[in-house]
């Protein structure tokens, strides 16, 4: 039963990820992106990472994508970059990187530490919160400070001084 759910969600995710890349209209592309985020949330739920799924929906699928949509829908259409053929040189350069990355990730999934489940965690929300605010408190705070700096910088760059 589990493989069926995973197959459906996985197919959905791959199809929408390909859609993001291959669709020419930027708004259609963002719709595929949204669909891939929803599929990802579904996969998180099926793997038992409920908190991650909820956060994925509420922060990624809503808050962040709404910003993308705002930006993309307000771009003047005559300035949108048109399709100009496949980038052959870039394709050749990136192919080995892609293969190496895939092999690395496949190795991690099959043989690495992630391959052995630690045991069933009952209250996902509580456990994630505890880990985040005890073992990983410092990285967590650093990440939030970086985000804050980025936000202040973006406001500074985007703001036009009056007068």
């Amino acid at each position: 039963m589990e493989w069926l759910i995973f197959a459906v969600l996985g197919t959905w995710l791959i199809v929408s990820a390909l859609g993001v890349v291959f669709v020419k209209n930027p708004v259609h592309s963002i719709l595929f992106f949204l669909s891939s985020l929803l599929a990802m949330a579904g996969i998180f739920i099926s793997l038992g990472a409920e908190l991650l799924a909820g956060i994925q929906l509420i922060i990624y699928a809503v808050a962040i994508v709404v910003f993308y949509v705002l930006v993309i829908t307000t771009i003047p259409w005559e300035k949108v970059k048109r399709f100009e053929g496949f980038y052959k040189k870039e394709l050749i350069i990136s192919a080995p990187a892609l293969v190496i990355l895939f092999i690395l990730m496949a190795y991690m999934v099959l043989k690495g530490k992630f391959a052995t489940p630690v045991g069933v965690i009952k209250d996902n929300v509580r456990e994630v919160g505890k880990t985040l605010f005890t073992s990983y408190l410092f990285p967590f705070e650093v990440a939030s400070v970086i985000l804050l700096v980025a936000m202040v910088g973006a406001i500074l760059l985007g703001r036009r001084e009056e007068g």
Partner: protein
Amino acid sequence: MQELGLSLLITLIKVLIIIPVALGVSAYLTWFERKLAGHIQNRLGPTVVGPFGLLQPIADAIKLATKESIIPKGADVPVYYLAILMALVPSILLLAVVPWGPGFQIAGKYIEPIISDVNIALLLAFAFGSLSVYGTIFSGWASNSKYAFIGSLRKAAVIIAYEVVLGFSVLGVILLAGTLSTVGIVEAQIQKGVWFIVYQPVAFILYLYCMLAESGRVPFDIQEAEAELVTGYNVEYGGMKFGAFPLAEWYLNVIALSAIAVVLFFGGWDGPQILGPISPYFWFLFKTFALVFFVLWLHWTLPRFQAKDITEIAWKILLPVALLNLIITAVVVYLF
């Protein structure tokens, strides 16, 4: 395998009960709203079709369904249709995490009248509530019309602002209850014997603001301000395609968010046993309907804010108040 089949069957039955009832109630809310609006404005409201105009929603539905289907010139047809789905589906999914009453036993099987009792129910509720914004945004974009598009952009700005406030306002309740599950929050209130509105009155007021903003009700309905935008994002939709938007946004969303508010602040199905075994369900529906009524009442009483005021209120007033409320609650919970 049999266990799984049985639980799937039970879920299917729940879905088949809740969705038609919710859609029917939403349709009749249009009648109720028009009656209410009529009486608030010293008119009679619908009176002609059926006794007290009771058949008016059916007449409306027939009218909408038989209208000519028009697609505006230059519209993005797939997105134009997809937008209807994107408005309706999250609103219906919202109903999945609403606990309509306490669990009961049938033939040795414990059944909870909630479609999915997950322990991230509240997160899901807010996610679905905000996901419905895509219906608004893409309907405006796909219609290829300036009015519709301005409406969508306004809605997007509102959602971004109020989403944040909504999240922070309910964190206080989550701290008090110690869980994100809707059933768990109601049980915590029953166990403590106090509704959380007593501890969190500020959070409730903030929630109310956000509920109005998310469902696009007055005074936050700038996305469709009739006077300037000729009803905004859905102006290029006709027939039942048009009907789907208010149904999702104004009725389904309001019902579901009111039900979540009842769960968070009014003790869910808690109440005196006046009707025997069905009194919890009665109390839940009664409280939900009272909140829906309050929202409709506001809708026909208040004027609308200006577009720039709405986001300013959210970022400059509501968000600091919500943060302060959260910090105070956290300190109090930690100390006692």
